[in-house]
Each structure stands twice: as structure tokens, then as C-alpha cells.
């Protein structure tokens, strides 16, 4: 009997008879569910679908750029492809990735609640996501859209005859999906915590989601109204963004980036939460400087609202504004630096193991550090002039979003996979996938920094021949990267049926979610837990395990 507590030996673990997965059967029980865990699974399936569509677009982009002459796709097709890649990856993958899947699954359990505060709104948010997704698919089916994901006016309003309106409305609807997710998280974290779960006992995953949710709730509506204005401008020509009627295209930039810069933090903060959990668990040590990491999340969220105009340094904002926004951009880099060093210091005197989530987390540390530091290049006014709108931006963004966020997402998916499905993924092949992803990523995106400094502009369907060598490296890397992303899809699907039974706490982690069965019951807990320990209290876990051995055994 004592074997159940001396995991990760899973030989005697069995799947529980009743769990959220088999409480009810049938499609209807899934599509009308209020259970946050089921909604998380629905989200996971849908964002995976969109990730691979966006990934296919990326593959087309890299194939096109293999040669300098634009042999594969016509220029307008290429424009549609990179626009679809951007829109899908940003609004249909990155924004909902960790929050809507892992966050949805874990946050209620982590705070000791039975569900999110508003289960129906949670389901509504998934349906909004699906509706937006269907609109996006319609856009792609009926001729695509070639605005670029930034919808820049007056290009999007007056100079294109593609499906801009539908695409804009799709993003509008997707935005409300994200607002409702954020709103649900904030209320849940404030109001649904179990007795004894004080703010400073919350896992850092919850803190980072809290910060991201604030950004979702306060930033997204500005995007909504901006896109509404774009749609109105395009359909009836109201003139607010049209310079020939006295409107100001730069106002669009201001309003767009007021959301879309914080959106970057919406995308990365939840990933940072994953990294805190994973690094702590696999070094069996509490996160170094818990308070600093928690507050740096909030600081990123707050400062995130003050830096949007750094996307517009050369676009005609006043020099004084450029100075202020550059200064604030430098300040927002500091909390990220704090996080990186605190994670590194967490390893100190730990007892480190190298399971797949940890490998992905190491990948995150390296790639996010590069991504963050190159962000400082771009925040620096004079350097930005040369680097902006080139492949340097592309590389920087992908280092943060793919090297950072996607690594964090995969780390989280592997980490919580046993909890979500009750089964282990195959450790050997998944470690291989983590390494392949890291190598493929570096090969794909590092050459783009060099291309950027050489001056190769982004969004070019064809380019001068001297840039070809680096582009070939990049495309070659992308094929490696593609394998790295396909592997998890295959072996995780395989593991649903054939994976080893995980048992409640395969990693011996301290979070509340690991103290219940895997997969959990629909109500998460038999009885509301009472929390007496801090997050990452491994002594508490060891003590609890000892008691259990005596009680159970």
C-alpha cells in the first residue's frame, strides 16, 4: 500500500473509477459542460488544431523564402499566408494557449475551488473562441486576408480588397473570449480561494495568470473598439483613421498597440507561471525569492500598459514621446531579468532531475533570455531605427513567443499531462522532442537576427540574393522544428491509451492539484481543502507523505 506514496514508481497506480473524464459520456456532455477541466480539454483540442494550421502557414513561408526569387507563391498569396500565420498564431494560439488550457484546468484546483467562478461564462468563452475560429477559417477559405496581423490603416481600410472585415470581426470575437477567461480568473483568484490559501501561499502560476488576466480585461476592449472603427471605416468610410478626410492613421497605431503590446505580456506571463512551477518541482526546492517573482509579474502587467508606443518609434510619434516610451520600455525589462535570475537561483542547492518539462524549461530560460535581451536592442531608440521592421524584429518576437511561450506551453503540457489524462507520456521520446525543438528553434531563428542587422525587411515575398544563405539555414531549421512539434502530437495521442498510469503525484510536487487523484473528480476535491502551508513547501509534502505511509500502510 505504501507504494502509492513513494512515487514516481507507478507500477501499482491505477486509474480512478470515477473522474471528470468518465463522469458523463457523449458529445453533449462535453459541449454543454460547465466543468473547467473539460473546457480546458476542449480548448486544448481547438488550439492544437489552430496551431497546426498556423504551423502549416509557417512551413509555406519558410519554403517560399528558401529561394530569393519568390518561386513558390505569388506575392499576394505570400502576403495572405504570413497574415494568416500571424493572426492564427497570435489570437488563436498564443493568447489562449496556457491560460485557456492549463490555466483553466489548474487554477481552480490550485486555489482550492470546485470550479471557476462562472462556469457558464467559461463555456461561453470557448464558444466565442470557436465562433471566431470558424470566421477565421471562412476568411482563409474565401480568399484570405493580407493586412498583416497588425491591420495597419490606411492599408487595411482603403487599399486592400480581401476579407478584412471578417478577419477583424473574428479577432473582435476572439478578444471577447479572452476577456471572459481573464475575468473568470480574476474573480476566482479573489473570491474562490480555499480557507488558509492566502495570497502569498498561491503558486506563482496563479500570480502570473492573475497579472495576465488584468491585462486581458483592461487591454482587449481597446482592440475591440479599434477593430470596430476599422470595420466602420472600411464599410461606410467614417474617416477617423483616413488622412485624406482629416483622420489620423497614427491614432490607429496608438489604439492598436495599447492592446497589442500588453498582449505580448498576456502571452508570456502565463508561460512564466509554468516555468516557476516546473523549475521548483524538478529541483525540489521552493522558488528563490517567491515575493520578488510574484510582484515582478504584477510589475510587468502594470508597466506593460505604459510602453506601447515603442512599436511606433519611427512611425511619426513626437520625439519627446519616443524618449518617454523608450525609458519606460527599459524599466519593463527589469522585472523579466529578476525572474530569470530568480529561476536560475532556484536551482542552487536543489536536487535536480531532468524530466521533459524541465528540459523545456531550460530551453525557455535560454531562449527567453535571448529574446528579452534583444528586446532591449529594440527599446533603445537609435538602435530601433535600424532594426525595426526587419528580420531582427521577427527573430526577437519568435524568441520570446515561440522560444519562450511555446517552450513554456509544451513544458506545461508535459508537466500536467499526467494530471489531465491520468497517464504518463513516454519519457524517452519526449526528451528527444524537447532537444530537437531547442536545436531546431535556434537554427531557425538565430540566423534571422543576422539577417535583420543586414537589413532584410520582414514580410518580403522575394529578397536580394545575398540573404539566401541565412534564409536556407532558417528554412532548414524550420523543418527540424516542425518535427519537434509533430512528435509531441503523436506520442501524447499515443499515451492517451498506452501511457503508463500516472498516479496522483508522479512528480512529487507540492501544488494542491497534485494532492488529488489523476484525472481529478468533477468537483476536484471531496471536501474543501484547508491550506496550512506555503507554496513549494517540500517539507510539508515529505511530512504529509510520511503520515500517509503510517496511516495507509
Amino acid at each position, binding site marked *: 500500500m505504501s507504494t502509492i506514496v513513494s512515487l514516481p514508481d507507478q507500477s501499482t497506480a491505477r486509474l480512478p473509477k470515477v473522474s471528470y473524464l468518465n463522469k458523463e459520456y457523449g458529445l453533449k456532455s462535453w459541449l454543454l459542460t460547465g466543468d473547467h477541466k473539460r473546457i480546458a480539454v476542449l480548448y486544448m483540442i481547438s488550439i492544437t488544431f489552430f496551431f497546426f494550421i498556423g504551423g502549416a502557414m509557417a512551413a509555406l513561408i519558410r519554403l517560399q523564402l528558401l529561394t530569393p526569387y*519568390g518561386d513558390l507563391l505569388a*506575392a499576394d498569396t505570400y*502576403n495572405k499566408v504570413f497574415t494568416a500565420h500571424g493572426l492564427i498564431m497570435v489570437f488563436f494560439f498564443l493568447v489562449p494557449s496556457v491560460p485557456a488550457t492549463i490555466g483553466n484546468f489548474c487554477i481552480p484546483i490550485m486555489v482550492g475551488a470546485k470550479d471557476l467562478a462562472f462556469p457558464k461564462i467559461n463555456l461561453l468563452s470557448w464558444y466565442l473562441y470557436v465562433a471566431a475560429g470558424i470566421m477565421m477559417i471562412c476568411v482563409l477559405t474565401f480568399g484570405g486576408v493580407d493586412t*498583416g496581423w497588425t491591420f*495597419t490603416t*490606411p492599408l487595411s481600410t*482603403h*487599399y*486592400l480588397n480581401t476579407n478584412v472585415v471578417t478577419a477583424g470581426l473574428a479577432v473582435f470575437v476572439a478578444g471577447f473570449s479572452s476577456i471572459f477567461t481573464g475575468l473568470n480568473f480574476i474573480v476566482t483568484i479573489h473570491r474562490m480561494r480555499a480557507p488558509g490559501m492566502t495570497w502569498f501561499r498561491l503558486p506563482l502560476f496563479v500570480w502570473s495568470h492573475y497579472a495576465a488576466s488584468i491585462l486581458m480585461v483592461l487591454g482587449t476592449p481597446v482592440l475591440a473598439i479599434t477593430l470596430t472603427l476599422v470595420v466602420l471605416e472600411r464599410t461606410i468610410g467614417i474617416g477617423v483613421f483616413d488622412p*485624406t478626410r*482629416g483622420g489620423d*492613421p497614427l491614432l490607429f497605431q496608438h489604439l492598436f498597440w495599447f492592446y497589442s503590446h500588453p498582449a505580448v505580456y498576456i502571452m508570456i506571463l502565463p508561460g512564466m507561471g509554468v516555468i516557476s512551477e516546473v523549475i521548483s518541482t524538478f*529541483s*525540489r*526546492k521552493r522558488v*528563490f*525569492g*517567491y515575493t520578488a517573482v510574484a510582484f515582478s509579474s504584477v510589475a510587468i502587467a502594470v508597466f506593460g500598459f505604459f510602453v506601447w508606443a515603442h512599436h511606433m*518609434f*519611427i*512611425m*511619426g510619434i513626437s520625439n519627446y514621446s*519616443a*524618449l518617454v516610451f*523608450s525609458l519606460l520600455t527599459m524599466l519593463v525589462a*527589469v522585472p523579466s531579468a529578476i525572474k530569470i*535570475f530568480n529561476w*536560475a*537561483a532556484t*536551482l542552487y*542547492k*536543489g536536487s*535536480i532531475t531532468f524530466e521533459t518539462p524541465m528540459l523545456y524549461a*531550460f530551453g525557455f*530560460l*535560454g531562449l527567453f533570455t*535571448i529574446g528579452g*535581451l534583444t528586446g*532591449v*536592442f529594440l527599446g*533603445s*531608440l*537609435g*538602435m530601433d*531605427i*535600424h532594426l*525595426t*521592421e526587419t528580420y531582427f524584429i521577427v527573430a526577437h518576437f519568435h524568441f520570446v513567443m515561440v522560444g519562450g511561450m511555446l517552450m513554456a506551453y509544451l513544458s506545461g503540457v508535459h508537466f500536467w499531462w499526467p494530471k489531465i489524462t491520468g497517464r504518463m507520456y513516454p519519457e524517452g521520446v519526449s526528451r528527444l522532442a524537447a532537444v530537437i525543438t531547442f536545436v531546431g528553434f535556434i537554427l531557425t531563428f538565430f540566423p534571422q537576427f543576422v539577417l535583420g542587422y*543586414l*537589413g532584410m*525587411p520582414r*514580410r*518580403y*515575398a*522575394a529578397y*536580394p540574393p*545575398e540573404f539566401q*544563405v541565412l534564409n536556407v539555414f532558417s528554412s532548414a531549421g524550420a523543418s527540424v522544428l516542425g518535427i519537434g512539434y509533430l512528435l509531441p502530437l503523436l506520442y501524447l495521442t499515443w499515451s492517451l491509451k498506452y501511457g503508463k498510469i500516472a498516479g496522483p503525484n508522479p512528480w512529487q510536487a507540492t501544488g494542491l492539484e497534485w494532492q488529488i487523484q489523476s484525472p481529478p473528480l468533477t468537483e476536484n476535491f471531496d471536501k474543501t481543502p484547508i491550506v496550512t502551508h506555503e507554496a513549494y513547501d*517540500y*517539507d510539508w509534502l515529505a511530512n504529509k507523505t510520511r503520515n500517509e505511509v503510517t496511516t495507509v500502510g
Partner: protein
Amino acid sequence: MQHFISPVLWQFLVKWLTHFAIFPPEASSIAPYADALYFFLIFISVIGLGAVAILVTWFSIRYRQSRNPVATQIEGSTILEATWTIIPLILFMITFVWGALLYFRIYSPPPNAMNIYVVGKQWMWKIEHPGGQHEINALHIPINQPIQLTLISQDVFHSFSVPAFRVKREAIPGRYTTVWFEATRPGVYHLFCTQYCGTLHSQMIGWVYAMKPDDYQAWAAGSTSGHSLAQNGERLFASLGCNSCHNSTPNAHGPNLASVYGSHVQLANGQYTTVDDAFLRDTILNPTLHEVAGYAPIMPTYQGQVSEDGLIDLVEYIKRLNSNYRIDQTIDNSAGQPVQTGATPAGTSAPPLAPGAVKP
């Protein structure tokens, strides 16, 4: 070597290697300053990344489970955390100041800069030299001479980028922007549009020809269209009827425009403003927004009637207008005084051209 692999592949490799570039040429006076900051930033990035990499690697080896089975729980360390807060902060502040200085170097043209107008449109760059040379997707400039570009877009956002000079500036619809550079090495350099501007964005590219001053003079003399921008502007000024109000006769309704460029004028709302290119352009299109004190707001708008090229001609004309002599004469002529028409020899009137302009 080529005997061991296929000749096609060999050709390919050779082509690659000859085209292989990892650093752009430094061809302007600004480039070394930009590169210095770039290397500084790379330096601190390597330090930062190195610090993280060393810590992570060392801890991973030293504290792996097989070597350190029991973790020691540590709360944190205020001193350490303060250290890695303050050191990055200082480095980022240095970067900020350095970057700001570079920014103002790039965007503050020196007073002796030679002005060239650039109009961006889907999908080409139209370059207009004051001497009347027009170019598409090509820019000829002399080296060792500060060049100021005044950019505007006719439709959507474009961005004028010359990587070899490390300068870039957005061409905005409805507004002039400026950037300057001084080429230091003769050569042919890429000119890109870097702001996504629609279907043929990737074909909105061209070349910058940096030439020795003598070569440039030869090119300028050989490429002129026959009329300087100011001369085109003068014709436009007359054909639009601007001269009926803007002259120096006693019954002129509008301000006298001679030598108005660069002066400070008081607006109807009491504020003072400097007359620059942007101000001139705006007053032609939106006269009500810049009512000059002492004049009735009767000027019609020319929005939609003058192209960006025409506006540039007008601006260039007014910029170089030192006297109203020729305007008044045109008025007299059109007022129907045939006696004096032929009596004014063209040669005696002072041409309103600045010395820099190239004559036909």
C-alpha cells in the same frame, strides 16, 4: 574539390559563399555610431546570457539529484535580488541614454544638409531632386555631403530604409517626415521599403548610388528634366491662381510669401509657429487650421487638387522665393497690360532660385 561533388551543387556552393554576408557595409557617417551601440548591446547580452547559462549549467551539474539527493530550502536573498535588479537597471539606463543620443543624431539634420524629396506610393519610391532630376527606385547622392530626405506617402505607410547607412524613416500619408545621412563610401547600396504596404511590398526596392562629388555633378547635369522643382512650382503657383492673393500689391488678400520660409508667424489663435515644409503643405490643404493673424480665412482648400508632387513643387518654390518681383509681373501680365508684356526681358528678372539649384 569540385571533382568529388556534382557540378551543379558546386556552383550553388560557390554562389552561396560569394553572396554570404553577415554584416552590412558601413557606408554613412552614422553607421559607426549605430554599430558601436550594437556591439555594446551584444556585449551586455552575451554577459547576461552567459551569466544565466553558467548558473544553470553549473547548478544542473553540481546539484543534480544523483549528487545532491536532498535539496536545501532557501527563502531568497534580498541582497542578491537587489543586485540582479540594479545591475540590469543600470545597463538598461546606459542603453537608453546611448540609444536616445543616437536617435537624435539620426533624426536631427545639420543645417547645411542638401534636401531631396521622396514620395512613396504603391509600390515605388519617387525621388525628386531640387534641380528637377526625377528618379524611380533609385537615389543618386554625393558622398561627404549631408543629405536630408523629406518623405511623404501618397497612399499607405511606407518606410524608407538604407541598411548600409543605418537609417530608416516612415513615409506617412499626409505628413512630412525627415531623416538625414552622410554617405562616406562610394558604392551602390540597397534601398528597401520596410513597412508592409500591400501586394508588391517586396518589389518596392531600389538602389542608392553614393557617388564622388564630381561624378554626382556629372550625373545631375545629365539627368535633369529641364525644370527645377521651384520652376515647376512657379508655374503651378500661377496656374492655381495663388498669385492673385499672394503678391505684394496693395490689394493682396493673402500674406506676402517672399522670404516667408523659416520665419516665425503669429497665428490667429495667438500662437507663433515656424514656417517649414510641413506648415506650407498644411496651409495649402487645410488653410483654416493655420490661419495667420491679420488675414481673413478666405483661402480655399486645395485638398484633392494638387498631387504630392505638386505640393513638393509649391513648397520648394515658396522655400526659395526671395522676392515678389516675378509674381507681381505675372499679375500685371494677366491683368491685361499688353504694353509691358514684351518690354520685360526675362533675363533681367532675378530668378527666384537658390544657388544650389541646377539650372536647365
